[in-house]
């Protein structure tokens, strides 16, 4: 059993070690401040992809968090209602949906009618992936709030909605923040839904209705080229992406230990 435990951590350790060896050499100030150069030219960076990923994740969060948290709260508070059962089932189905399917779907409805790729389409595709993750996690966190607390609020004359929001949701908040960060970390690395939505962009762009670069997608693009210089950049981008995800996971850990506790404690 101990051996299995060690084996379970091996892939991560090996991956980190290899990434550091291959990628760290290409990480310099330019990597964070410059946009990609053409083949043959040395230097250049991935500033546009880093910012692109942040924008895409931001759009996804704006969609995924309110919808997911609202739906999760509903499911937890109205556990036996038919709508809650349906939402729970569909969330599980959506959770298991291959992300490439989500990408095709977003392309069909958000890219084809408009006629061109866009950051918005990519963000929406990622947001749709986030919804079921956040829904299920929120429901679980809200369910850990004792019924007694809910009753205490109702007995004080709190209306039902106010009990849900200012007592139940508030008490479950540290747990929900953690779940939200885990969901963000998860979708930040998604590539497939972006292939035919945000598409990628070698240039600096902040426009939501234009194609935009993203780290995972940039890794893919660079890794399949025959140029060693670009391979090095792909490794570096992988390292930065992993670092980003790691940072979010750490933030999630920190959030559970917030003061005044709540359920996460």
């Amino acid at each position, binding site marked *: 059993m101990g051996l299995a435990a060690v084996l379970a951590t091996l892939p991560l350790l090996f991956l980190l070690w290899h990434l550091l060896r291959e990628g760290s050499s290409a990480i310099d100030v330019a990597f964070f401040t410059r946009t990609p150069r053409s083949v043959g030219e040395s230097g250049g960076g991935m500033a546009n992809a880093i910012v692109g990923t942040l924008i895409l994740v931001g759009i996804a969060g704006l969609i995924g968090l309110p919808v997911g948290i609202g739906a999760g709260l509903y499911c937890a508070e109205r556990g036996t209602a038919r709508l809650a059962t349906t939402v729970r089932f569909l969330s599980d189905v959506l959770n298991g949906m291959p992300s490439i399917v989500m990408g095709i779907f977003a392309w069909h409805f958000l890219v084809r009618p408009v006629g061109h790729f866009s950051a918005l389409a990519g963000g929406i595709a990622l947001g749709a992936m986030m919804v079921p993750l956040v829904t299920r996690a929120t429901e679980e966190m809200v369910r850990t709030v004792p019924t007694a*607390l809910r*009753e205490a609020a*109702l007995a004080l004359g709190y209306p039902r909605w*106010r009990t849900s929001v200012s007592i139940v949701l508030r008490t479950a908040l540290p747990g929900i923040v953690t779940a939200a960060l885990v969901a963000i970390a998860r979708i930040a690395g998604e590539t497939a839904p972006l292939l035919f939505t945000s598409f990628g962009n070698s240039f600096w762009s902040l426009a939501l209705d234009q194609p935009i670069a993203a780290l995972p997608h940039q890794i893919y693009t660079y890794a399949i080229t025959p140029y060693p210089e670009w391979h090095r950049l792909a490794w570096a981008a992988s390292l930065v992406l992993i670092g980003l995800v790691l940072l979010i996971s750490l933030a999630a850990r920190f959030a559970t230990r917030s003061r005044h506790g709540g359920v996460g404690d």
Partner: protein
Amino acid sequence: MARSVERGSPNGLAPAKTMVAVRQLDAYFGAHRAVLGAAIDFVGGEVTAIIGPSGCGKSTLLRCLNRMHETVPTARVEGEVLLDGRDIYRRGVSPIEVRRHVGMVFQRPTPFPTMSIRDNVAAGFRALGLRAPSRSDQDAIVEQSLRRAGLWDEVSDRLRDSATALSGGQQQRLCIARALATRPKVLLLDEPTASLDPLSTQKVEELVHQLRGAVTVIIVTHNMQQAARVSDRTAFMLAGELVEIAPTPTMFTTPSDPRTEAYITGRFG
């Protein structure tokens, strides 16, 4: 100069008056009837204890008095409960309004874990939103409520701390302070000392004593000694039926119903 204080007017001033009148009350969980045709008057300013074996419906009856019973799925109530003369189950009466006049404290302490000690006490009137009193008025009410709950001296220097840092007994008195802060006419205590140690239990009982006269207290307990110690009147319930209600000394010395006698002499329950 000694003055005898009559039962039924514990503060010696106001004449005894019915604060809560229960008329032909049935309470259901789905098809199961947990309270059968209860009829009882709770006298204003008095402490009334409801005793009876587990599952006899005493908590359910209590939860009918602030319309908490109906918050459980499939639960419903038939009959009347007159609070100060007005039926709280009449069409158009808001359960939220009822609960602001009828405070409740539960078996286990339920401080809100995300709130400070101060905010816990203020929680009841903060829920009023725009109609909530000003910040300085709130502070005054918080202090007064904590004093009434006998907790002020223990927490006055750490009002901003989390309420979960308090001991179980302190948490329970905090919940009493929270219930008192909205100045309810009636205070319902549902086995308030069931999860407390003897010393904390004693403090809560002393508190109930001090509240006599100012608030109408109805306390559910399965501890008969406690009922004898704190109450003016005692009601006995068995299998959903309200068997008997009498002044506490009478109840524990010469009960009129043989079932009551059997219970208090320990032959069942």
